[in-house]
């Protein structure tokens, strides 16, 4: 007989052990999946986890980890603030898109003027765009009590249509022979979010992600607002008695996560992606939700989780090309990671006991 009992206190050991355990279990079950597909499981897992960091071409892949990981971390940090307080922003993808459109729009408005002021203006516009898009669900929730999960999610699809419209209309490259997509900002020095040190992958988005991590860490650890966030998430009634204003907290959490997602979009469009196009967004806003939980909603954990997710993407593509693994198998592998993590969460708050239940 196996029984599950609630722990009197959440286990601190388990809170740290479960992410590691989840990764190990993912490797075991993922390996079994790869073996079932007729591939060498050890080689497949080595290709995904080892090749990008220590393989022959690591000099190329290591910077790519930062490029792929930075937007994930930047968005996940913002989401984690809200998630901790029980405020669910599921629409970071939309805020990411709107931030990119606003940032790129400001940059392109100045084309071809060269000035050092253009890039800071774009950063500001990107942040404002993302913030404003997140304010829609925030204000609706505070004013009319709507569900922020639904509203923020639905606004992703609105943002995608806006993106298509911008790629085909207002921001379309006038020298693009009628094809969709804006000018490439990589070829516009004043607007280009170039690598700060060439070959390192370190662009301003990576710097922004690091600043956001420190900011979130300080906020949650030492600031009164961080305390309010934690108390609201853990004991909403106590928070109310403690004088926390729930409306203000919703505005702050959604606004901050929107702002960071907007920044991520702006840095991406001005740097690695280069242009606004119909398929500009590739799901960072949704993947960041996984990253936030994988990192235990903890700023430092999120950095590790973001890099780990980036690793599975990069290693997954290498495995596809070198071993002929289908993309779907890689996606299942990534899905397993979240599944095991959430399933093992049970161990933090409950313990499993073997043997007969004692009659009370």
């Amino acid at each position, binding site marked *: 007989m196996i029984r599950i009992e609630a722990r009197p206190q959440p286990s601190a050991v388990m809170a740290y052990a479960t992410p590691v355990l989840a990764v190990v279990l993912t490797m075991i079950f993922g390996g079994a999946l790869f073996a079932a597909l007729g591939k060498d499981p050890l080689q497949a897992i080595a290709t995904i986890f080892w090749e990008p960091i220590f393989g*022959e*071409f690591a*000099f*190329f*892949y290591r*910077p*790519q980890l930062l*490029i*792929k990981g930075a937007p994930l971390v930047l968005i996940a940090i913002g989401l984690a603030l809200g998630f901790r307080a029980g405020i669910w922003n599921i629409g970071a993808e939309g805020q990411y898109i709107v931030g990119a459109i606003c940032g790129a729009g400001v940059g392109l408005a100045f084309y071809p003027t060269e000035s050092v002021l253009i890039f800071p203006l774009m950063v500001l516009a990107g942040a404002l765009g993302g913030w404003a898009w997140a304010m829609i669900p925030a204000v609706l929730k505070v004013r009319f009590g709507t569900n922020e999960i639904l509203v923020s999610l639905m606004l992703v699809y609105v943002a995608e*249509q806006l993106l*298509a419209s911008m790629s*085909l*209309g207002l921001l379309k490259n006038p020298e693009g*022979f*009628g*094809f*969709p*997509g804006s000018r*490439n900002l*990589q070829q516009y020095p004043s607007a280009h979010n170039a690598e700060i040190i*060439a*070959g390192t992958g370190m662009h301003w988005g990576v710097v922004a992600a690091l600043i956001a991590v420190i900011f979130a860490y300080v906020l949650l650890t030492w600031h009164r607002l961080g305390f309010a966030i934690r108390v609201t998430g853990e004991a909403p009634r106590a928070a109310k008695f403690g004088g926390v204003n729930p409306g203000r907290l919703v505005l702050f959490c959604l606004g901050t996560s929107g702002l960071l997602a907007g920044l991520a979009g702006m840095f*991406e469009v001005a740097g*690695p*992606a*280069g*242009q606004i*196009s*119909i*398929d*500009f967004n*590739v*799901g960072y806003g949704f993947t960041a939700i996984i990253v936030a939980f994988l990192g235990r909603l903890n700023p430092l954990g999120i950095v590790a989780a973001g890099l780990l997710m980036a690793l599975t*993407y*990069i290693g997954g*593509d*290498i495995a*596809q*090309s*070198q071993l*002929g693994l*289908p*993309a*779907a198998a890689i996606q299942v592998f990534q899905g397993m990671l979240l599944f095991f993590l959430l399933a093992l969460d049970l161990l933090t708050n409950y313990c499993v006991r073997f043997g007969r239940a004692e009659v009370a």
Partner: protein
Amino acid sequence: MKFTTLVASAALALGLAGGALADDPTKVGFVYVGPVGDGGWTFTHDQGRQAVEAEFGDAVETVFVESVAEGPDAERVMTQMALDGADLIFTTSFGYMDATNNVAAKFPDVKFEHATGYKRLHPNVSTYSARFYEGRAVQGHIAGKMTESNIIGYIASFPIPEVIRGINSAYIHAKKANPDVEFKIVWVYTWFDPAKEADAAKVLIEQGADVVLQHTDSTAPHAAAQEAGDVVTFGQASDMSAYAPFPRVSALLDVWGPYYVARTKAVKDGTWESGDTWHGIGDGMVGIGDITDAVPAEVKEEALALKAALSDGSYHAFTGPLNKQDGTPFLADGETADDGTLAGMNFYVEGLEGEIPQ
């Protein structure tokens, strides 16, 4: 060390290794935007890859990565293939244009082939596309003959020249076959979304369309037509023969195999050169799927005659007299459209209703 130096030295090392082992198979990489099982665009490119494997056997090794997002992901995957020693890389989505040229700059010894783009910034980049509008002409003819309500529905993806060219070509030839014909166009802003495509098909059928043409890749419009009972459809990209003989009466096929085989051979022989290829029915890049018995015999005969004329070049799908939608002259009597005009086509021909969304 700078990144470019690193890549250059890595490329050099690979080049030396390649020289030492001259018997090495030629490595050909394919970067796909969708999954190989999409039944449409990526599926047909993967058929092309398999044609290369079948042709050269052990003398060629092919690798592919599917579902690669446009932007930095595409650039990373291409770089990775080049680092792994690919000699030739096909990048099969318009959105890979800048990434292809960026990576080509770093690997001058690797040949790049970019589908449907126009940028060839380096001598190791070629572009290629198909004259799908020729297939649309045949489709338009059959559609014009088959419609009884005289309303033809068109599920359009994005308002770009490629799609507009298809609409114009289909309309011109439907109108020739049946002067009373009218086009209703729905823009769905996606290349592949079964739910949206099904909705679009239903809307068009409700508005009286009894022929539905599509520039999107799923079979959802066929299913909607089958449900309605008396609506004609055409396969897109692949044959979609599961819906034959009715509602699917024919198909517009993408056939990449011959081109991929020819370019791989050119790399093996050392005769590969940068260029822009735009092949149609005549060169076998565009195919017409089997015309089923649901189409009357004489219509089928006319369609095949039109296909033959397009194939041998005796007829051009855009032959004057033609006016633009606003009534201004486009082509004089007997004049044919040049490739530049076709490539950037951003207007409807006279008779089409509605505006191209901007």
